[in-house]
């Protein structure tokens, strides 16, 4: 270009020195013993050592203590005439800060072609490494959330399908029981409606807390049963339902079963008994007891629940025995009235804490 003038014309050494000093990368040289022989401005900036402080001293000053073999290995390869291409490692600054760096090392030869040392180009990649680590962390978090969401969707799908199976089964059993008359009594449809409400209550609770538990989902007995009793009171007319519910953590399957049982037993008490319905749920040692009592005529003498079994009674007995692994008692109170008592093992606290054996969630 006209008028342009090369200030280093004829002085190639000065030009090279200017290039090295203006580089954003650290450019340093050392002899074959690792003694620093040159140190540019960027090296001062990256390592915190000024040139006059480090020239003549060992390059080991910038190698972290946990990488003692790195400098001897580099020097051995340089002596063998090997060029060490870009690799990532760590270095230590004068103030002790560890930094991430990308390094290339090349042998330096004298005029006779003898290797006398090495030239190292160093780039500080601490910031890009930090961003990379942050991205990896974010990616891992997204992956965890994705897994949790997938699990929650699978659980919800399974639970909804299971609820549909329960509803379908109850309808089917009613259909079979009333096949001869070819019509199902309105009362049974009302009972089915209550069961659907019951399943919806438990489903609501489970959906609110889905994903919060890594293992088995657990529900509070007071939260679920009191909410359900509230619904039953709405349809019990003048009959009051008095409840005393003790707090117990229940597995989701137990919560579903207990809710269906409670619905069935309270509906029976309202239908067959008189006066208020009394619901009592308490822990008795290693067992949990659910009692539903009324002030009616009680069970007739010689009452045999097996012989008298109809769908409702079979449902209650099946839920107790198969789902809760418990026992059921049909009793008459001294002061009059019927009382159905269900006893089942207390949910395993270790399993609830996620440290013990898991209990099966729902059937497939």
């Amino acid at each position: 270009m006209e008028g342009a003038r090369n200030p280093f014309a004829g002085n190639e050494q000065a030009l090279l020195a200017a290039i090295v000093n203006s580089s954003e990368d650290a450019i340093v040289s050392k002899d074959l013993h690792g003694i620093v022989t040159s140190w540019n401005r960027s090296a001062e900036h990256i390592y915190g050592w000024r040139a006059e402080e480090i020239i003549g001293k060992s390059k080991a000053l910038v190698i972290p203590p946990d990488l003692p073999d790195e400098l001897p290995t580099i020097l051995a390869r340089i002596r063998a005439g090997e060029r060490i291409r870009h690799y990532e490692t760590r270095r230590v600054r004068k103030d002790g800060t560890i930094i991430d760096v990308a390094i290339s090392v090349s042998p330096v030869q004298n005029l006779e072609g003898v290797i006398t040392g090495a030239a190292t180009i160093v780039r500080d990649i601490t910031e890009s490494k930090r961003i990379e680590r942050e991205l990896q962390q974010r990616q891992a978090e997204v992956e965890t959330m994705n897994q949790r969401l997938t699990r929650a969707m699978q659980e919800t799908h399974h639970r909804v399908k299971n609820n549909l199976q329960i509803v379908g089964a109850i309808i089917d059993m009613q259909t079979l029981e009333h096949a001869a008359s070819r019509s199902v009594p309105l009362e049974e449809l009302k009972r089915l409606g209550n069961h659907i409400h019951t399943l919806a209550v438990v489903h609501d609770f489970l959906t609110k807390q889905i994903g919060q538990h890594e293992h088995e989902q657990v529900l509070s007995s007071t939260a679920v049963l009191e909410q359900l009793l509230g619904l039953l009171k709405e349809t019990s007319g003048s009959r009051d339902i008095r409840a005393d519910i003790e707090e117990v953590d229940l597995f989701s399957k137990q919560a579903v079963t207990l809710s269906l049982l409670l619905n069935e037993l309270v509906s029976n008490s309202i239908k067959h008994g008189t006066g208020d319905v009394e619901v009592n749920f308490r822990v008795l040692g290693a067992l949990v007891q659910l009692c539903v009592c009324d002030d009616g005529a009680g069970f007739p003498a010689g009452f045999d629940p097996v012989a008298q079994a109809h769908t409702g009674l079979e449902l209650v007995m099946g839920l107790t025995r198969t789902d809760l692994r418990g026992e059921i008692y049909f009793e008459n109170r001294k002061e009059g009235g019927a009382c159905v008592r269900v006893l089942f093992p207390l949910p395993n606290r270790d399993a609830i804490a996620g440290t013990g054996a898991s209990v099966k969630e729902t059937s497939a």
Partner: protein
Amino acid sequence: MIPVRPSAVRVPLWWSCVSHDPSEGVAPDETLRLETGADILRDKRVVIVEDEAITQLQLRKICLAAGMQVVGLAADGEQGVHKVLETAPDLVLLDINLPLLDGLSAAERILKEISPCVVMLTAYDGEEYRRRAQELGTCGYIVKPVTSSTLLPKLQAAYQRFQRGAQ
């Protein structure tokens, strides 16, 4: 504690876990039989392995209504294998997601010993499960939910396949 009379009725342990006479509870339903054409299943001896009480109850009622004999009920895989080997039924209705031993492993153990028509009855609709069930030699794979009108024709078809295979 609510006071009760000493004469309380306790439902016996065996009520929900052992065989039932087909005449007990649900009588064979002629209408159902005619509607579904489930004659081939009549008098067949069946074991039901299902851990969900309501579904177990429903399956039992469907089988009894179709004129089958429910010779065993079980709520886990181990108990299921035991019941089947003990009673040697014609048919086994077997859930997959069972406690103690899953249904496919239970089917494998059963079919190593005896050859009933094992029908998997499950909420799992995956191809992998179906293939595994087929490899084991089961004669049917039915996906829940089921009703009497959907289950019996499928059960009948499975049993026909089983009979053809046995000839």
